[in-house]
């Protein structure tokens, strides 16, 4: 198989580009006195999602809720404890499917820390040529590709190809990281806090570029960020996580315009106001997110939820279809036993 040409679409537009089912990742951590007992961080717990061709799926949630773990599972930097993945119809890492290496060619990732992810001893051109060369692209063609990649991310090849990472600003380094993610002509790019470390004026440049590249190269994005405004700006659908679980998932208009889950509502109204005449007068919820080691039973949000009732501690709410979105809350499940739920 020639791994250096753009991949042809297989299953047509209706087939999800990436389908993940029942993903689970628990990390054992030493606990107790002398670290003898083992506790478990339930970083991602039975999480299923699909990414449609050509969309941007935003992922939000507070620190430690498992966003980066999901990202690492999706490109198999981490092996899931449980769960399956299918890329455009092909099961991943299964006898009749595609290999993890093939997955990692079609799915690329960009991280927050633009400096740590570049080798300080390689020039920008060397960094960008590395993967294509390793996949067998002849040197002359690799040089051509590097020039093309640099132009695509708005860096003049004549000026930047021979520079080292420390000779670039943060925004320029992040452009290089994006160029590197594009080097093998992937179909899906996972952006994990990719613009979070940038100053606002530079962040806007990179966001504009991401929008342009998506159209030009027919890309699909998974965009992970703690910045709710940026996620709203970029995403078609949004997935809200809390302590390793999806609490709400749906079109961006529904999530931001009519959030259903009490956590989503709290998160959105915790955004600082941009208008001094409409300052926030009350925090939507109190307390900190609990530790993902030994999360609360039933609904994991119940310790901070103003609507929690008995059933919330006993039964885990399923992610069920509401009007336009899917919500994991007993108030939305008919007959759940929550006083605000409809009778079954």
């Amino acid at each position, binding site marked *: 198989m020639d791994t250096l040409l753009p991949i042809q679409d297989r299953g047509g537009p209706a087939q999800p580009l990436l389908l993940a089912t029942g993903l689970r990742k628990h990390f054992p951590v030493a606990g107790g006195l002398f670290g003898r007992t083992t506790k478990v961080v339930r970083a991602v717990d039975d999480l299923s999602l699909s990414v449609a061709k050509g969309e941007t799926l935003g992922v939000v949630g*507070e620190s430690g809720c498992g966003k980066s773990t999901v990202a690492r599972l999706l490109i198999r930097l981490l092996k899931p404890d449980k769960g399956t993945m299918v890329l455009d119809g092909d099961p991943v890492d299964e006898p009749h499917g595609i290999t993890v290496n093939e997955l990692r060619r079609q799915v690329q990732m960009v991280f927050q820390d633009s400096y740590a992810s570049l080798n300080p001893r390689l020039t920008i051109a060397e960094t960008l040529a590395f993967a294509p060369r390793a996949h067998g692209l002849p040197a002359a063609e690799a040089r051509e590709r590097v020039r093309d990649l640099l132009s695509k991310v708005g860096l003049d090849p004549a000026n930047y190809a021979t520079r080292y990472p420390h000779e670039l600003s943060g925004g320029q380094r992040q452009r290089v990281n994006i160029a590197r993610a594009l080097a093998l002509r992937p179909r899906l790019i996972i952006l994990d806090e990719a613009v979070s470390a940038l100053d606002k*004026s530079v962040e806007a440049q990179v966001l504009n570029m991401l929008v342009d590249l998506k159209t030009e190269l027919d890309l699909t994005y998974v965009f992970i960020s703690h910045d709710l405004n940026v996620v709203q700006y970029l995403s078609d659908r949004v997935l809200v996580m809390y302590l390793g679980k999806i609490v709400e998932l749906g079109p961006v208009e529904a999530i931001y315009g009519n959030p259903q889950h009490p956590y989503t509502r709290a998160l959105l109204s915790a955004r600082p106001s*941009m208008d001094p005449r409409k300052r926030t007068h009350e925090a939507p919820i109190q307390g*900190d997110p609990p530790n993902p080691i030994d999360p609360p039973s039933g609904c994991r949000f119940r310790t901070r939820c103003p609507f929690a009732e008995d059933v919330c501690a006993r039964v885990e709410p399923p992610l069920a279809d509401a009007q336009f979105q899917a919500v994991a809350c007993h108030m939305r499940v008919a007959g759940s036993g929550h006083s605000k739920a409809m009778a079954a």
Partner: protein
Amino acid sequence: MTNMLQVRDLHVTFVTPDRTVHAVNGVSFDLARGETLGILGESGSGKSVTLRSILRLHPEHRTRWSGSIKLEGDEILDMAPRALSDLRGQRVSMIFQEPATAFDPVFTIGQQIAETVRRHTGKSETESMKRAKDLLEMVRIPSPAQRLKAYPHEMSGGMRQRAMIALALSCNPTLLLADEPTTALDATVQIQVLLLIRELQREFNLGVIFVTHDIGVAVEVSDRIGVMYAGKLVEMAPVERMVDAPQHPYSRGLLASTVHDGMRGQRLESIPGAPPDLAEVPSGCSFAPRCKFVRPDCTTAVPALRDIEAAHAVRCVLAA
């Protein structure tokens, strides 16, 4: 309102064997008792250096400074060690992004707050511990009596940040310096801490200087906002003015490029290029290389910070 703090033409330069950094290049502002000034700017613009100058926290042998910082009439830049220690312990407190640096990991929160109280008031140990408990209650830490016995690492990020605020207020300062105290916190926790700072500021009539790179955060807490660029204040205005009608091309660009509600599908306005290197003192407007309105007189002299109306000053040749 009388001004408790006057900063005039502050310059701070760091000289190390391999480089010189002109971090602050002529900053002047006043702060009144009971007022919150937000200082907004991008990474490296000199926000933290300006703030730390008020406590003289820079390494003395590598730092050159000039100008004047007066607190209630006393010149901080001339203070002898004894006066400096009074300044830091009793008159001015600082809170910052990483509370871990404010607390010693081997002592409990209660021991550390009580010790600070004891040192500054001469109260007995029991009385100091009682005051420490009141302080934890004041920053709305649940079950404060138990929390006194907690070690810093046993508290969540939001709790530690509250405890640091308690520590900062333990000596009844009149001026509180806040350097991105909520930047590392989760959204739902950040808003709680912002509201707490706002309430305490009112309750104790504190002067507050709140440094942040987040416009939303600055808008939530500030009475006035100063925008810094390359070691200078380029604009200073009451918060409503700054949000409604920023005048400096950099402030305008910064506000326009900040993504917020209702911008979906629009192309973002962005400022080309990146902030300048601070190795040289610029001879003209520092923003000129990125400014779309640049004209010849922008680069011949440094534009002055001029009042364009009451309480609204702009450092740009176009402002009038």
